[in-house]
């Protein structure tokens, strides 16, 4: 009785703040959005102690008059929406009217502001949700918001704040995103009296990209463009040889807003399918403009999640635009010297260098594990290529290497044959070799599987979970032993050795993507065949992967054994193009 109470607004705001304002970076994001909505041309961010002590954001935007200022800390007050219909036509970054009340609920905050041209400015304070009175004061044109002692009254949140560098890295991410999307706004970020960023306005987004990520990347970016009736996509994507160990350089902006969207991420990874090594991610900067009525941004308080009216159309647009751009870039000759250098540099930079340097052919494994302890730096120093004795014609000091093959653009192998020459697609060739090897292993029951010492748990969404369980018997046949482990989680107990360079968890997580509906309808045989296909494809070397001579040699050795089967990779793409000497002679008009 009398136990159910309506919460006082201060408590409501504290709860709402919990969703929206989870760390200093969230405050920075919300306040910059407001400044942008106010038409600011310059936004200065000043922080102390990673934003934990002080966040101050000043803009030269429209400012607010005393009347509006009195309202801003009240919940759901916004100047940007007035009716529910407006929700379907959002042209501003903010619209929920939640940010300022939420921030005010968990900090000491103060706004000083002056409308352009007004004689005097106004000031308001809020202390942990207690709103003060508006006072007249002198102030520069625009708005200045100061947020102090964030989370002083929510000890749990406060405890969850990370170290200053961590909070700073979140905040830099936020600023980077805005800066990329709004090149003509001047942004500065200062921390404890040090300048972290100073980004004067520029004409083009690409200039900001260069500023953040360097000239090398900028030089190689491919621009993408598509205009449809309700949808425009423009931006830049990096060719596959420029890639990253994580997806952090995938920027998607929608109507001026940084968003995360699984469908678009999927389209990106599909566009680069087969072009990247496992665990490597493309670099993309995509700017989408969609008619506001076609997208719902009111999905989550932070507004980074959106719902498209027609998701699959967006998916297809992005996929085809990216594919086009990537294909075009492949056709034209590229300067191989430069990409190679970057590739090498990047290699040296990742912790899992061992993985990238991994030799496919670890026959003499005692040789190549030694390098593990040597420094990971010095990426430009080339690793000596092991040579077979027969290939060395030793003439005192001169070593002449007689090669019958070489790698082209890190993607193709050119082979001299007695009859002429072959051009071979390294990924397709390796894939077909593995495909037959896996099949042979299955038929002769000689496919080793590694038992896991610590079984790996994979949490799946319900759809994937049920799908994976439904093909459990077939998975077991190909060497992947899984078990149900609580709701929506499976446990990997063993994994085929042939996939030892793959991450089992990711393999399982991606299974539904890799399977088409037809594949499942084909029954037991069809499913196993599809699994073998997927395994061969994922375990095979990728296009763009540099091979050393020994690796090429071993690959070519194996090629001899598979020609008997077929010339095509399991997808039906050719592995080899042959040119006879006769043909070459004819082309050069020697015959």
């Amino acid at each position, binding site marked *: 009785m009398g136990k159910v109470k309506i919460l006082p607004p201060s408590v409501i705001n504290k709860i709402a703040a919990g969703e929206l304002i989870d760390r200093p970076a969230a405050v920075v994001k919300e306040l910059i959005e407001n400044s942008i909505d106010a038409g600011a041309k310059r936004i200065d961010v000043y922080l102390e102690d990673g934003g934990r002590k002080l966040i101050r954001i000043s803009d030269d935007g429209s400012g607010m008059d005393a009347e509006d200022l009195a309202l801003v800390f009240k919940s759901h007050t916004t100047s940007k929406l007035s009716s529910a219909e407006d929700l379907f036509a959002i042209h501003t970054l903010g619209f929920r009217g939640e940010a300022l009340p939420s921030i005010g609920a968990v900090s000491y905050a103060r706004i000083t502001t002056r409308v352009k041209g007004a004689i005097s400015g106004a000031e308001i304070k809020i202390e942990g949700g207690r709103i003060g009175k508006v006072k007249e004061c002198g102030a520069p044109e625009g708005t200045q918001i100061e947020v102090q002692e964030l989370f002083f009254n929510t000890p749990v949140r406060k405890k969850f704040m990370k170290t200053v560098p961590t909070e700073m890295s979140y905040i830099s991410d936020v600023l980077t995103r805005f800066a990329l999307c709004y090149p003509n706004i001047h942004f500065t970020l200062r921390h404890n009296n040090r300048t972290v960023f100073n980004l004067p306005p520029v004409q083009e987004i690409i200039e900001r990209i260069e500023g953040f990520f360097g000239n090398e990347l900028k030089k190689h970016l491919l621009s993408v463009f598509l205009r449809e009736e309700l949808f425009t996509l423009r931006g830049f994507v990096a060719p596959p040889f420029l890639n990253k160990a994580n997806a952090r350089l995938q920027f998607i902006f929608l109507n001026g807003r940084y968003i995360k969207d699984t469908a678009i991420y999927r389209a990106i990874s599909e566009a680069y399918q087969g072009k990247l090594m496992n665990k490597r991610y493309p670099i993309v900067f995509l700017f989408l403009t969609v008619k506001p009525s076609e997208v719902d941004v009111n999905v989550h308080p932070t507004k980074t999640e959106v719902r498209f009216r027609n998701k699959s159309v967006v998916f297809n647009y992005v996929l085809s635009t990216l594919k086009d751009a990537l294909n075009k870039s492949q056709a034209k000759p590229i300067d191989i010297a430069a990409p190679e250098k970057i590739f090498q540099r990047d290699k040296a930079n990742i912790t*899992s260098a061992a993985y990238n340097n*991994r030799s496919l052919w670890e026959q003499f*494994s005692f040789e190549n594990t030694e390098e593990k*302890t040597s420094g990971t*730096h010095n990426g430009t120093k080339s690793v000596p290529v092991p040579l077979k004795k027969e290939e060395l014609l030793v003439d005192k000091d001169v070593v002449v290497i007689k090669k019958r093959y070489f790698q082209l653009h890190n993607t193709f192998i050119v082979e001299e044959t007695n009859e002429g020459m072959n051009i071979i697609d390294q990924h397709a060739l390796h894939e077909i070799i593995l495909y037959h090897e896996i099949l042979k292993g299955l038929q002769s029951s000689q496919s080793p599987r*590694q*038992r896991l010492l610590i079984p790996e748990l994979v949490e799946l969404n319900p759809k994937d979970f049920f799908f994976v369980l439904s093909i459990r018997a077939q998975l077991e046949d190909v060497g992947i032993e899984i078990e149900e482990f609580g709701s929506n989680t499976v446990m990997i107990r063993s994994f085929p050795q042939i996939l030892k360079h793959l991450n089992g968890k990711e393999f399982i997580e991606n299974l539904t993507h890799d399977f088409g509906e037809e594949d499942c309808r084909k029954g037991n045989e069809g499913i196993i065949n599809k699994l073998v296909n997927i395994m061969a494809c994922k375990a095979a070397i990728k296009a763009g992967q540099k091979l050393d001579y020994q690796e090429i040699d071993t690959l070519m050795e194996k090629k001899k054994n598979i020609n008997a089967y077929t010339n095509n990779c399991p997808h039906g793409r050719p592995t080899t193009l042959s040119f006879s000497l006769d043909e070459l002679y004819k082309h050069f008009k020697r015959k």
Partner: protein
Amino acid sequence: MKILSSGTALHKGFSLAASIVPSSAMKQILQGVKLEVTNNLAELTATDLEVLVKYRLPTKACEGEGGIVLPASRTNNIFREWSGNEEISVLVEEGHCTLQSKGGQFKILGDDHLQFPKISKTDVTDFVEIDGEILGNMVEKVAYAVSSIKALSIYSGIAIKISGDTMIMVGSDMNRLAVVKRKIHNPGNVTMSGIAAVKCLTFLQRFVSECKGILKVGIGESQIHFIGEKGEVISQLIEGKYPNYEDVIPKNNDKKIEVNRNELLSIVRMASFVTNEEYRVIEFSLTQGKLTIFSTAANVGEASLEIDAQYDGPDYTNTFNPDYILDFLKASDSETITIELGEVNDAALFRTGHEEINVMMPVDWK
């Protein structure tokens, strides 16, 4: 400010610091090594934002205060060329630095040292002590087992646990697990633990070869610190909880043998000559007084190799990945190895004493 130092000292110190510098940093300033002089001490600092290293440069003379951020690889090249020179003087003025030695000088433009990123070190309060060389050797004993494909997960790091007078390091890729234990000096009797990135620890191996002597080690909530007389290494920890390694160490494996490490190493290595590239399997058989290793590969052939082993239990056969065995044997420096085996599906235990342990799962090979 100005310092005077020998070519070797500068080259050694600078290349140590430079080796942590990322080659493609977002911010140019990160691609540099900071040189700073305060209170007549010269210090080099470099970071990739995950690992930070500070190194006190041995100098012959050191005057003034100030600093500069020097481009890592360029400057490193210069010092490498001059590493044989008896004396190099480094003069830092506004925005640039002049390196002078026998036969010439360089003027190198640098960045403002005040802009160099700082890492706050509030996190760590307690420290224990251990000889740097021992620590480097511990890393060697577990780093090989760490996963190279589970980037960012706890299995891409090495778990470090300190309690009482021992430090334990654990590395695992989920198929196998390596443990090493060593004594430490723990005057405050503190207990602490964390997961450090392999990158930090392999760098540490390099660091301790330059900065010999006792290291203080402290683990906080998000950082691990290694502090020596000549410098320090600070690294961000990997977030997450490492499984209790003791749970996976088999306790009831009843087939126990002791073998000579070199002998075993040599036959496993030889047997792996005739394994397939994709299929890394050897058969491991125990019979009265003997350990036999057998391997076979399609289109290659077979190998059967044996060594003496004190064994009088029932005949036993199982299959393992030879690389896992080799990794352990190569990292070990003991003369003999103890192997404890259980049933066919049980984990096998390879150890030297009780301080260096490797547990691996067999391979199913029907």
